[in-house]
């Protein structure tokens, strides 16, 4: 990760835009609008849901690992068409987002915004019980596309909840 930078007062609009993106990712998942979800990512993106237990040891195995928007689409289609899983609803709760903006002239990082957000995903199953399903933090790299929209170039959900309850079919 790059050195942290204080976000300047004038960057308030950018902070809101980034937070909107992070929140939209959570909302599309919670509202089951999964077909719209891959559009929040660049075409050559990285999306990784990985246990802190592995990150701390420098090990690469993730619960879910996609390195293209097409793989995200495939995960959604698999959820819709193939996988069998218990009925469930997610509810994300997010902390405020902390930003690291590139310094002007920082080589290779032009336009790259790094953002960190804590999250908790509550899950409710058929019996109506809501439990804490997954807690962790998002480490995001965000870029602005030619169409002016911000998208995730890379999103890591590093979760503390090593113990995955039953299974994981839905993105975090």
């Amino acid at each position: 990760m790059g050195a942290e930078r204080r976000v300047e007062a004038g960057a308030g609009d950018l902070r809101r835009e980034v937070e909107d993106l992070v929140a939209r990712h959570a909302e599309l998942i919670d509202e089951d609008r999964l077909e719209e979800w891959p559009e929040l990512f660049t075409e050559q993106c990285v999306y990784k849901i990985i246990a802190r237990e592995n990150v701390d040891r420098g090990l690469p195995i993730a619960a879910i690992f996609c390195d293209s928007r097409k793989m995200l689409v495939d995960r959604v289609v698999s959820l819709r068409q193939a996988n069998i899983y218990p009925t469930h609803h997610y509810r994300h709760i997010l902390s405020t987002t902390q930003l690291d903006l590139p310094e002007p002239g920082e080589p290779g990082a032009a336009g790259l915004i790094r953002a960190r957000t804590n999250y908790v995903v509550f899950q409710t199953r058929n019996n109506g019980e809501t439990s804490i399903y997954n807690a962790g933090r998002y480490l995001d790299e965000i870029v602005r596309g030619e169409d002016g929209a911000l998208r995730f170039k890379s999103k890591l959900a590093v979760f503390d909840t090593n113990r995955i309850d039953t299974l994981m079919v839905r993105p975090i």
Partner: protein
Amino acid sequence: MDIANPQSPPENQADEGPACRVSYKVFTDREIYDREQETIFRGETWSFVALEAEVPEAGDYKTTYVGDTPVIVTRDADGAINVVENRCAHRGALVCRELRGNAPSLECVYHQWAYDLKGELIGVPFRRGIRGQGGMPKEFDMKRHALVRLRVETICGMVFATFSHTVVGLREYLGPLPVEHIERIMNRPIKVLGTQRQYIHGNWKLYAENTRDPYHGSLLHLFHTTFGLYRSTQQGASRMDESKRHSLLYAIAASNDESADKEVYGDSRTFDTGFALQDPSLLKSRKEFGDDITLVILALFPNVVLQQISNTLAVRQTVTYGPDAFELVWTQFGYADDDEEMTAIRVKQSNLIGPAGVISMEDGEAVEIVQQALARAQDDTSYIAMGGGRPDDADHLVTEGPIIGFWKNYGELVGIEDLVD
């Protein structure tokens, strides 16, 4: 005690041919669970506890469980692997409270009693008192207060342990067929790629059935079927060791037969020609074994599955937490000499397996939907007959033979043969 299926009075059961019927009590009864802890996990069996590659250096340790007994696996300065019960000889505290680490000795935080990496007691603070006051009795003998040691044996980098002084050696316990397939996968040094934990609200034996069940492969795991990784019409086989407690299922992907598939799957929801991956790099693989086998599920009684699914290699260890809860600890690995591309292939293919695995996640749901339905089914039994209703090997995958083998062995070992018909 008549535990036969109430829908089919005993005198009519033979009409349907051979079958195995298992009393559902075995999945819900607390007494049976406790009995299993004694007769299976602390009995004449070998339980998997670690990969040697998880504790490579002197002082490395890992905590895990045999059944639900907490244990510590250590590598000592001689290079030997030790497994001890994680319980202080003093007043019973957990000695080691971390998942893994490295330490020169094992020290209990409560009174700082210290043990060497073999579990021998080497330090007792204030043993001789302070300024003539207190201290342990002069007869106190530290040698008598070691941590409980388990017998340990390793095979090709897999570490097994047992509480039993009488069970046969590990290789004999496994048998030639499992040993052959362990040697096939664990053929050279490995490196650990990561751990995943899947907590399932069901009885551990429902997973033991599931991993001995080639019948469900193409019917529950729909992702597989659509992409030709596994179909029941594929060439494959189901074999057990002599005791029938261990099971080997394997499949050869190259033998997909399209016209046979259409005929077989016509009636079921699994048949779907319209499903194509947008990014097929998920399935990119490299042939790395001398044979054409692309799937191996080697279920070793009681607590581990060694698997090869394409290029994903893993052990799945069962930790029991009660009659209706267990955890699968998935440890994925590659070979120490894998190049970067091979590691990348394995990491990408790991989307197929584990708790979020597109072809394995459903086993969690399958176990839970059985457990939920069994709440008040103690007087009824399951009905296991696919493939002929006997614990037979098969040269195909349309069978439940290994499940029957498991139950026959289980019934004898736990001493409840009357619940397995």
